């Protein structure tokens, strides 16, 4: 089959030179095929149909720049008329198609310099993220490799330097990895433990406020400052550690439930659950009264074991944020926010002073044996580091 010449009222295509013949012969235009000839316009057009059904025509040389279209034309002969428009892949919608065709139209002109092309490309990809993604997909389906590379690189640059959260925002992606899955990758990024603490606290507070709402008669006790020394806290924890069930340290006194604040409860929950293997729990909860970040929890009063209502905050609360529903009324939410903010402020500002206080309680200075180059190795030091003092080298 030939690429036949398209004759329309507006554009007369007489392209003898553009004929490509499969049967080896030339097709001379017969008079009946000519309707109007505009001498100055000699073009061939290809018809393309996008997935939404709309059809448009494109200059042949522009369309042929796309390998996929080129192949369609050559192998199936489609595209010669409106009825035989080439169906483009689904990923190519009309607006993206027009972008792609702009690209093709520019680049298929042979005379351009590399500088010109580069400059065009740089401007070309300055579109919003959504369209850039659509463009990449579409270019890939049309096998237009230079454009795929151009757009892919642009997307890569958008991804570089961003945190996972920022990337998710940019591309509207779901946050569907579990905590465990997030841990498993080899993470090099720092994770602020205070932020985790705040999140946990926030979640717990919301839950507690919900509970209180249910009970209807609530007296919120202010968080009290814990004045015990670190050593006291440690021995307290040690008392709870050996106990695998932990039930002994936590007494369930429902009537006292209202009087203690939730931080206390979790502190002891944590103590009682020490033997549980939940790594998530231990690392983030350890700020509440056990080995890690004892001082952070010191703002909660944990002295009265029997005040703990373990069952008000079941074992799952600390781990399962998905549990918490957001149906607090705005006033409560505001109060909650304020309390968390207050706690955070205190955390941040008080630490050095509090630390000083706590460390000065019952502290003994230990004498450290001073040793300089503490090794008696007689190996010949040829390595540079070994020739230097143990203070530093590479």
């Amino acid at each position: 089959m030939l690429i036949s010449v398209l004759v329309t009222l507006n554009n007369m295509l007489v392209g003898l030179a553009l004929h490509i013949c499969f049967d080896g012969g030339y097709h001379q235009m017969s008079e009946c095929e000519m309707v109007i000839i505009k001498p100055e316009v000699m073009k061939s057009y290809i018809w393309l149909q996008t997935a939404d059904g709309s059809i448009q025509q494109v200059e042949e040389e522009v369309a042929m720049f796309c390998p996929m279209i080129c192949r369609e034309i050559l192998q199936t002969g489609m595209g010669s008329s409106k009825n035989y428009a080439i169906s483009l892949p689904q990923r190519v919608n009309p607006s993206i198609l027009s972008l792609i065709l702009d690209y093709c139209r520019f680049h298929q002109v042979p005379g351009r310099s590399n500088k010109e092309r580069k400059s065009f490309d740089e401007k070309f990809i300055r579109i919003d993220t959504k369209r850039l993604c659509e463009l990449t997909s579409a270019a890939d389906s049309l096998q237009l490799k230079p454009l795929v590379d151009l757009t892919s690189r642009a997307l890569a640059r958008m991804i570089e330097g961003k945190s996972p959260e920022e990337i998710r925002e940019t591309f509207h992606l779901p946050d569907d990895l579990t905590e465990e899955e997030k841990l498993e990758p080899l993470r090099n990024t720092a994770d602020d433990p205070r932020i985790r603490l705040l999140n946990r606290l926030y979640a717990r507070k919301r839950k507690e406020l919900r509970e209180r709402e249910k009970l209807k008669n609530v007296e919120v006790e202010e968080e009290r400052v814990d004045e015990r020394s670190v050593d006291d806290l440690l021995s307290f924890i040690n008392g709870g550690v050996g106990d695998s069930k932990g039930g002994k340290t936590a007494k369930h006194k429902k009537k006292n439930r209202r009087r203690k604040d939730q931080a206390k409860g979790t502190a002891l929950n944590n103590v009682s659950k020490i033997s549980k293997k939940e790594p998530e729990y231990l690392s983030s909860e350890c700020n509440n009264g056990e080995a890690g970040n004892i001082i952070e929890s010191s703002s909660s009063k944990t002295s009265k074991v029997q005040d703990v209502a373990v069952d008000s905050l079941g074992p799952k609360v600390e781990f399962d944020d998905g549990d918490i529903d957001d149906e607090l009324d705005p006033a409560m939410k505001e109060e909650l926010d304020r309390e968390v903010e207050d706690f955070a402020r205190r955390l941040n500002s008080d630490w050095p002073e509090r630390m000083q206080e706590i460390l000065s309680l019952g502290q003994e200075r230990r004498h450290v044996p001073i040793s300089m180059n503490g090794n008696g190795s007689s190996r010949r030091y040829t390595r540079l580091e070994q020739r230097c003092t143990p203070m530093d080298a590479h």
Partner: protein
Amino acid sequence: MAYSFPEEVLEHVFSFIHSDKDRNAVSLVCKSWYEIERWCRRRIFVGNCYAVSPRIVIRRFPEVRSVSLKGKPHFADFNLVPEGWGGYVYPWISAMAEAYPWLEELRLKRMVVTDEALELISRSFKNFSALVLSSCEGFTTDGLAAIAANCRNLKELDLRECDVDDRSGNWLSHFPESCTSLVSLSFSCLEGEVSFSALERLVSRCTNLRALRLNHSVPLDKLPNLLRRAPQLVDLGMGAYTAELRPELYSRLGNAFAGCKGLKSLSGFWDVVPSYLPATYSVCAGITFLNLSYATIQSPDLIKLIRQCRNLQRLWVLDYIEDSGLNALAASCKDLEELRVFPSDPFGQEANVSLTEQGLVSVSEGCPKLQSVLYFCRQMTNAALFTIARNRPNMTRFRLCIIEPRTPDYLTLQPLDAGFGAIVEHCKDLRRLSLSGLLTDLVFEYIGTHAQKLEMLSVAFAGESDLGLHHVLSGCKSLRKLEIRDCPFGDKALFVNASKLETMRSLWMSSCSVSFGACKLLGQKMPRLNVEVIDERAPPDLRPESEPIERLYVYRTIAGPRLDMPGFVWTMGDEKSATEFS
């Protein structure tokens, strides 16, 4: 609504993302990205070989081509980690031999590499092309011979500061005559002789050779021939740069250097005879890295050489350069980015050279691009540190080593807290810092407050109490590695900041005041940390719990306690260890 892509497209986008940090971020975005990313990850960097197991890495990244592993902690360089502690690479090699038949590159640092491991590498990976061993030990030249003989497509064989049992010079002859692929060959740390004829033939036929670092057994009179065979060299590490003064050798050398128009890096210079130095002048204008850390030449000769290297970016030199040489450096080398000054006589009681804080101040004033400093000296002042800090807010690595511990500001006799405080306050991009001199807890408060980008901190003989350690652990957001020796830091700061330790790669504390009881507690409470007590004296449980241990090494891990510990290392909190202590 997610902006979706077909997998191949996303994979193609990821192929333009190279840094580990970015790839890790990509993998944490969502489930589908995690999956796609793991299948197309080709390079993997494991900063601590015990943080993860080979099995886990292989399971997650099935198509890796390049692996980098680090073993012992940094303080191993100063013999603070006893022999036999660990860092064995064999388990990794054996796992990868099965899982990654297409592995191409292996980069190891501070690991124990045996000849068996090298032999296994040479047999298992058909496309193996690059082996880089830095500060490794445990192998002999027989292992190198296996690599040379069996790796058909070897491009890179680099031994840097390794401890190698040199059995013979024949390993080099094991490169088959058909081997023409070498791009980089570096064996400067080997002590024995090599066969010169084999070396010459190898260099001749490897026309892509860009880097060649010889050991000091290669005499100077062999150098011109080698250089003539490899005019395309970019990086040259010379052997011994000494010979009797012979004009014909000098002129051959000069001509040979002149032929290497692309040379950018010069090192080696063992036993330098100053009169031969001018032979290198023809290439000096192009030199960007000059490593004179083995060159025992005096300041005047050094100055002459440095003045030729106007485009110098990195200089490693002995303190023979003295203040006068550093002044000349500051005047001549305006592109200087990195300066390392090593001590010529670290164990001497008195200064043998006239190198003071002035030299460093000079360079900080004269070299606007200076961002990385390692400086050994014997005296410092707060004022000098202030000046350096103000001159160079672009500093990213600052390691100051005043040789005598606890040396105060020699003018005011004050601690150097304020000086280092100025460094961390002005140099906002500081990533690495080493402290020295007389320091109280105050310096740590400054560091905790200001050093928000600090990733690695080295501390020795500093501080007064746990508060110091607490400031650092609670303040430095980006901290990844902390190494401490001989400081009065104990249990409390560790407990309070235990969860911080999970966000870091590792913490090393030796000759501090950390008690055995504290280590046990920490190990029990933090299952995602390996808390290693390293004590060569005796099992720590035979002593009171409150007694300080010798060394503590804490690192985060998802592989659990390791199974290859020697008798003097215990992992705390491990069930097995627990039963050993009744």
